[in-house]
């Protein structure tokens, strides 16, 4: 069967400046189907961001193969969009130029149709009024929206998000989560969503991958069978409590083993 994303036998170690090797991931195996929303949770430093770098082709694994639609990933791809933990906006460009930056950086020039597309996306993310503002005039949540809009510009099939809402306050965070789900329904994409919030993972995802402490490996893979569209009501759903409890138990268990 053709999976959208496939990690098989992935181990990765980083080399520190003093030549010492740090094993970040150890034999990680999983697949993601097309247009599935998968969340990854795990303790700090377990290798979640490493997963992102591997899937986006920014680094190649020490062992194993990452595949996208059966093609080995050996460098950055056009059909993968990245949203970083921080918004990573360029302070010298206004909002719309930030959104258009990937086109300018990659192709050298921006066409009128790109501009229209960027404007349409900004409308979709509720930022059209701020298109010509500088990033530092925006709130943290709005800045992260710009980061998401930028990742959507080249209309990637796969969207990887590395703790995209972790810098936001709880209310904004919840709102952004629901907005993301709306976007995802309007423009279906395969999503790999990294988070350290269990409830966020359960609320958003079709499936949650649980990682152990470093060296990170998958300890569980839980399908979240909650109805869609998800909303604030989902939080009241009896199954919601069940899933968060199960996940919490897993993470505590791995913590204890490691301790």
């Amino acid at each position, binding site marked *: 069967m053709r999976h959208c994303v496939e990690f098989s036998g992935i181990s990765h170690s980083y080399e520190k400046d003093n030549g010492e090797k740090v094993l970040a991931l150890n034999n990680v195996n999983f697949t993601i189907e097309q247009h599935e929303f998968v969340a990854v949770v795990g303790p700090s430093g377990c290798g979640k961001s490493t997963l992102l*770098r591997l899937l*986006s*082709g*920014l680094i190649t694994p020490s062992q194993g193969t990452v595949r996208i639609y059966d093609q080995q990933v050996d*460098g*950055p791809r056009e059909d*993968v969009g*990245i949203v*970083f*933990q*921080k918004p*990573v906006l*360029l*302070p*010298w460009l206004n909002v719309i130029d930030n959104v258009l930056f*990937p086109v*300018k*950086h*990659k192709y050298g020039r921006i066409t009128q149709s790109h501009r229209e597309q960027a404007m349409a996306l900004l409308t979709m993310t509720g930022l059209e009024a701020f298109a010509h503002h*500088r990033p*530092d005039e925006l709130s943290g949540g709005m800045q992260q929206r710009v980061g998401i809009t930028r990742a959507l510009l080249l209309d990637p099939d796969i969207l990887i998000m590395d703790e995209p809402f972790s810098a936001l306050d709880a209310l904004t965070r919840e709102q952004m989560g629901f907005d993301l789900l709306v976007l995802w329904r309007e423009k279906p994409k395969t999503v790999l969503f990294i988070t350290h919030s269990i409830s966020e993972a359960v609320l958003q995802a079709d499936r949650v991958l649980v990682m152990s402490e470093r060296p990170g490996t998958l300890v569980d893979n839980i399908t979240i069978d909650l109805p869609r569209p998800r909303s604030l009501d989902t939080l009241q759903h009896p199954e919601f409590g069940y899933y968060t409890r199960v996940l919490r138990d897993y993470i505590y268990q791995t913590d204890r083993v490691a301790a």
Partner: protein
Amino acid sequence: MFVLPAPSDIAEAFFQVESQRWAGHLWATVSIALQGFLLSIAISIPMAMMMVRSRFLARTLYPLLIIIQSTPVVAIAPLLIVILGTGEAPRLVITCLITFFPLVVSATTGMLATPPEMIELSRSLKAPVHKEIWQIRLPYATPYIFSGLKVAITLSIIGAVVAEFVAAEQGLGYFVQFSTSYFKIPQAFAALFFLAAVSLILFKLIQWIQKIGFAWSLTKTEL
């Protein structure tokens, strides 16, 4: 014994010298300072870009730059005159030598301080390294470069004056030396005030350029 002129003497000396003469000296110094400053920018920014691009170049050039920087320019100045003659060339070179170190250092520091996520953004778009430098690292370094420019512009006046001390028939530095040697101390002081004023104006000019063209690079307190 101290010989300090009264402010009234300085003011008097100021008006004794015809304004045309002042203008001539002023222009001689400012034009060398500005030309040296611009030349210095034209050399140091590309050099910083190359050093950021290649670690090998950085490792070979940096020690060399430090050696040049730690050699007192005042000591090299007479040599340069002998080598390059008494025209404008040695004065430009001296101004350049004195200004370019802060520029190279600030530009390099700024470009290397670019957050790794911005670099990852560039890599994820498969952009070539020169685009990473032109479109991300260099603009990111703007506030750093402006700090360097502010230091360098005042140094450029110092450079021009040092050069005039060694060989010149024009310029405020020459005028200070000339006046002192004829014991016209109030006149020398008047020239000093001119130099300070010019430095200040040029400094403000850089600040103004940053405010008009690169307002985003100012921190809140600088606005």
